[in-house]
């Protein structure tokens, strides 16, 4: 009977576009449907185990109805038999996961139901989603946004955070409430607007309530000793309310821009920080300058004990984060770097990232007929400086103490991640385009993934696009990764033939030729075809996916090895 629900959704989905054609009243219906399915085959060599259910799929349908100022919408997610990597993180189930009514005018916006929201950069609060990756921490509750005067906005939220497919909200003893305000000074004071200066300030306060009715027990082995010790933090000493405050500013003048946000959190003993009572704080700031053809930016982030979740004892693999501490390194989509992508450490990181974008103008000797794009990038992240407090040293544990003290701008001893990169993109003629890149990376496998050592690696890529004619194009990529550590050297090659705008044919192979173990010198090949009509995309692929780590939004997740046929269908209407 498990298809009963699915068939009824499909039935509704089938009918709704029909309504959309004629509209419902004076309103309009829109929506999207996606199905990501896979037929799994076992392959013992790459570690793709035989799975208990060979055919698996992640599916959802979204429907929105808009009539004037009113929007109502819902989403049904069908993850009853999800893809293996989603099953492993517990993102399994089905149901209406998103449903809301929203009324919006220029003055006020009121939302009831589930909603997403972000205060400032998110250091104090961010409810967001990335469904393809299984992240959704929407709140069920209510939100009000008011714009009382030009340039002033105030938001208030109250809600219970989503926990995967656990819809039994009556059992929950936790909720979140918050308020945020922002003022654009330049819209109030003539001097600023006349001078072309942008200046705004904002602030937010978010508080989490979670009932504390049980003592917290812990068992640990201090200094790797074999003798365990146990301890208790009584329920009465666990704060039920935890507040976080954030202040931000934004300044812009001509090409200059400065953005900064600082947040601090009161004592919040929880599983991720080993139940310490220290306050948390975070600073994230970016200074940039740009003019036509040139852009430079530098960002700094420090996060100390800022992991903030709806439930204090929940596993650190859960997604129930209330705030968002970003990983600010450059985001690459290179296949071979997938295993070495930096993941944000909300409790313990200090670092910076700098980037220069430069375009050599067209018509110059170096720029050629079409211009040349250059990017230079450097980032470095460390653990923060930590000095254990006496009590923690005496007790042999952090639990229940203030944990440590930390000097604000001092870098800790552990290098977590370093990236030096350079790339160049050049259109040579109407038919040819070339892109080259080089990266040097240091990646702390032990801290970021819990095994191994510091990996030093070089990574080079080249990409060539050849336009056969207006519609047909051939694109080839060749990447190589060189390292003496971890799995050794890799090479990746890809050829894609596209017939615009409908067809894509791709053949790709990743080869771990440098693995010390001959049996693990494996080809991870993949062939795929995609067909696009308008906003409908249907794709099928066959091949092997290597076991890896996917890091997004401060969370890293293991992606198991897999072998089989995948089908992806997505459409919007």
């Amino acid at each position: 009977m498990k298809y009963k629900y699915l068939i009824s959704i499909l039935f509704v989905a089938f009918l709704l576009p029909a309504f959309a054609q004629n509209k419902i009243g004076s309103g309009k219906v829109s929506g999207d449907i996606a199905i990501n399915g896979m037929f799994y085959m076992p392959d013992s060599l790459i570690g793709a185990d035989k799975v208990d259910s060979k055919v698996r799929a992640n599916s959802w349908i979204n429907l929105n109805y808009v009539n004037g100022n009113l929007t109502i919408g819902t989403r049904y997610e069908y993850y009853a038999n999800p893809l293996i990597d989603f099953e492993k993180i517990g993102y399994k189930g089905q149901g209406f996961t998103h449903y809301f009514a929203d009324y919006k005018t220029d003055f006020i916006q009121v939302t009831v139901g589930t909603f997403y929201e972000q205060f400032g950069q998110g250091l104090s609060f961010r409810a967001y989603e990335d469904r393809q990756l299984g992240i959704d921490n929407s709140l069920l509750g209510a939100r009000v946004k008011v714009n009382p005067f030009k340039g002033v906005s105030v938001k208030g939220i109250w809600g219970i955070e989503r926990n995967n497919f656990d819809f039994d909200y009556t059992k929950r003893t936790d909720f979140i409430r918050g308020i945020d305000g922002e003022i654009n000074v330049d819209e109030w004071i003539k001097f600023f607007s006349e001078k072309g200066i942008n200046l705004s300030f904002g602030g937010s306060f978010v508080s989490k309530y979670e009932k504390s009715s049980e003592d917290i027990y812990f068992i640990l082995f201090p200094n790797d000793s074999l003798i365990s010790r146990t301890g208790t933090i009584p329920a009465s000493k666990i704060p039920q309310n935890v507040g976080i405050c954030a202040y931000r500013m934004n300044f812009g003048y001509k090409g200059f821009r400065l953005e900064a946000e600082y947040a601090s959190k009161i004592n919040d003993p929880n599983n991720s920080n080993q139940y310490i009572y220290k306050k948390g704080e975070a600073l994230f700031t970016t200074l940039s300058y740009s003019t036509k053809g040139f852009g430079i930016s530098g960002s700094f982030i420090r996060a100390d004990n800022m992991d903030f979740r709806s439930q204090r004892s929940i596993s650190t693999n859960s997604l129930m984060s209330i705030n968002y501490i970003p990983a600010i390194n450059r985001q690459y989509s290179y296949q071979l770097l997938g295993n070495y992508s930096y993941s944000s450490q909300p409790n313990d990181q200090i670092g910076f990232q700098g980037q220069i974008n430069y375009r050599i103008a067209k018509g110059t000797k170096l720029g050629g007929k079409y211009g040349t794009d250059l990017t230079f990038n450097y980032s470095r992240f460390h653990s923060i400086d930590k000095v254990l407090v006496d009590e923690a040293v005496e007790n042999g544990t952090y639990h229940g103490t203030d944990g440590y003290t930390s000097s604000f701008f001092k870098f800790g001893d552990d290098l977590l991640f370093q990236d030096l990169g350079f790339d160049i993109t050049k259109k040579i003629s109407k038919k040819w385009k070339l892109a080259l890149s080089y990266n040097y990376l240091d990646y702390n496998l032990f801290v970021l993934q819990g095994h191994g050592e510091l990996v030093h690696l070089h990574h080079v890529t080249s990409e060539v696009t050849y336009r056969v004619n207006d519609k047909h194009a051939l694109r080839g990529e060749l990447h190589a990764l060189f390292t003496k550590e971890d799995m050794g050297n890799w090479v990746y090659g890809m050829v894609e033939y596209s017939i615009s705008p409908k067809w894509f044919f791709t053949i790709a192979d990743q080869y771990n030729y440098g693995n010390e173990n001959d049996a693990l010198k494996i080809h991870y090949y993949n062939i795929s075809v995609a067909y696009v009509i308008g906003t409908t995309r249907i794709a099928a692929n066959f091949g092997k996916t290597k076991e890896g780590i996917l890091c997004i939004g401060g969370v890293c997740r293991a992606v198991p090895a897999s072998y089989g046929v995948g089908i992806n269908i997505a459409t919007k209407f």
Partner: protein
Amino acid sequence: MKKLFLLTFALLMTCSIYAQEQTYQTLPSVDIKTIDGKTFNTKDIVNDGKPVIISLWATWCKPCVAELLAISDVYDEWVEETGVKMYAIAIDDAKTAARVAPFVNGKGWEFVVLQDQNWDLKRALNIVDIPFLCVLNGKGEIVWQHTSYAPGSENEVFEVVKKVLKGEPIEVKH
């Protein structure tokens, strides 16, 4: 499971048939930000009655950047010939949002760039994957839309813009 796939296919086919005859959707009213950090309502995406192109992209999305680079190469000619205006809306979140402005300027793009950090517009438009590109007519109706980028598909976008300007009907090609 066969049933599931069959049903899905039937459904998708039906949807695309309906989509052809559907009345035009207008752009939803959503508060996003300018690259100066100011609130901007998507109702204010206008071009004096001339066509508008909207692209949803991100600095980390390779095909998106390839598409914008390709359009940037010919944008001057497009504007001169049709008066079209392009809005490139970045969905980068706090990880990379502060680098959108230097990135765009560094590439010398002349599009109006906006930011949808928490994906409010992406959700309201029911977009599953980027790159997503749509063309609005002078009345702000979405008359053409497309997901994904293949080299050369920018030519089709320009054909659509020219038709919109002349008031010719837009066919959804199959």
